[in-house]
């Protein structure tokens, strides 16, 4: 079964001048249609051997515990038909609670946390569920425009079952005042933006331990190609 075409009102436009880096990097020509053959629908797939110690708990990857507000982020990876995507690789990365990435090129003058590297990786279970324990990332300034600040966000990378389901995105937090000013968040068509905002969930929240957030991830799925 073929993967459905992606509707036009989901992804950002590649050329989004408010996000300055798109101006010289967005391809100018329209993408060509690629009929779906074996290469497009065949994988890759991974198993738990791509994981590493404390792969799902970013607070336990170093000697001590990182500073910051401990959080649990969980959800399901589904396709657009509502079917769970089990055994799929989900990768996560983020800055620390002060808004600094564990990365040699991050020049933001906020402290590094010796106990936080900021990368995680899980394989979804039979119901397509994933779960990470981490700390809430800080906001940080960037040089896109005067007084530009990224809202707190987690980066997600998800594979699904084929390259046509591949998704790299960012998860945000409800009520963040910086969302209104962020050209990356606002590059998404308006009605789809809220899908990138996780929901605080008291059921996920662990008493005396961590706040819980739910973030479901919906990938393209198989279906009849609509006539057009």
């Amino acid at each position: 079964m073929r993967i459905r075409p992606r509707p036009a009102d989901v992804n950002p436009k590649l050329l989004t001048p408010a996000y300055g880096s798109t101006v010289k990097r967005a391809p100018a020509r329209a993408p060509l249609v690629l009929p779906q053959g074996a290469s497009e629908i065949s994988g890759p797939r991974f198993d738990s051997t791509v994981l590493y110690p404390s792969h799902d708990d970013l607070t336990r990857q170093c000697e001590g515990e990182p500073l910051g507000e401990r959080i649990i982020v969980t959800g399901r990876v589904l396709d657009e038909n509502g079917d769970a995507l089990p055994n799929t690789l989900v990768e996560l990365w983020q800055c620390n609670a002060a808004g600094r990435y564990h990365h040699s090129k991050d020049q933001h003058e906020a402290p590094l946390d010796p106990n936080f590297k900021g990368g995680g990786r899980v394989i979804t279970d039979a119901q397509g569920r994933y779960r990470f324990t981490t700390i809430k990332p800080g906001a940080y300034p960037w040089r896109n425009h005067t007084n530009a600040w990224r809202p707190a966000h987690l980066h997600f990378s998800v594979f699904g079952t084929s390259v046509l389901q591949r998704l790299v995105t960012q998860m945000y937090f409800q009520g963040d005042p910086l969302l209104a000013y962020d050209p990356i968040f606002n590059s998404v068509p308006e009605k789809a933006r809220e899908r990138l905002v996780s929901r605080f969930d008291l059921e996920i929240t662990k008493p005396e331990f961590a706040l819980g957030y739910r973030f479901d991830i919906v990938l393209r799925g198989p279906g009849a190609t609509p006539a057009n």
Partner: protein
Amino acid sequence: MSSRLTPSQTIGPFFHEGMKWRGGGTLFTAGTPGRVVRIAGLVTDGDGQPVPDALLEFWQADASGNFGAPTEGACAGFGRVMTDDRGRYEIETRVPGAVPGADLKKQAPHIVVLVLARGLLHQLLTRVYFEGEEANAGDAVLASCGARSETLLAKRTPGADDAYVWDLSLQGPKETVFFEC
């Protein structure tokens, strides 16, 4: 039915901790059958400037035309590389066997490539083919690109049968062909 698809966002510049990959640009383990080849190249933007913070993912069949399954810490035929400070990348792989296209006809050997970078709000999908392969002439996808099919051909390095060069141009007169995804 209204779509619930999760929108894409840029990978940003600081993905290395989350996307580190043990096999890197080595798509198959040593001893895997097939002709061993290296592909290296440069990623540039619309000004011809190097893109030092791109992530490239490669996915292909093995030399017999079969797609890999999960193996120890990897998946045969999958590779992931980050461009260096000069915008360069390199992979080592096998020339893939022929696999069927959407019309079930065999296609010329090719590798699927995903491109992600700061400034790209969603991934780009493309393919790399091998200069000099006879089957290129009959490949429907290459034909669909017309004169721009050149941008999908990895060029043989003179004097080195196993070395190819494939540069990617995100924008501009030599813009690489990208496909809907």
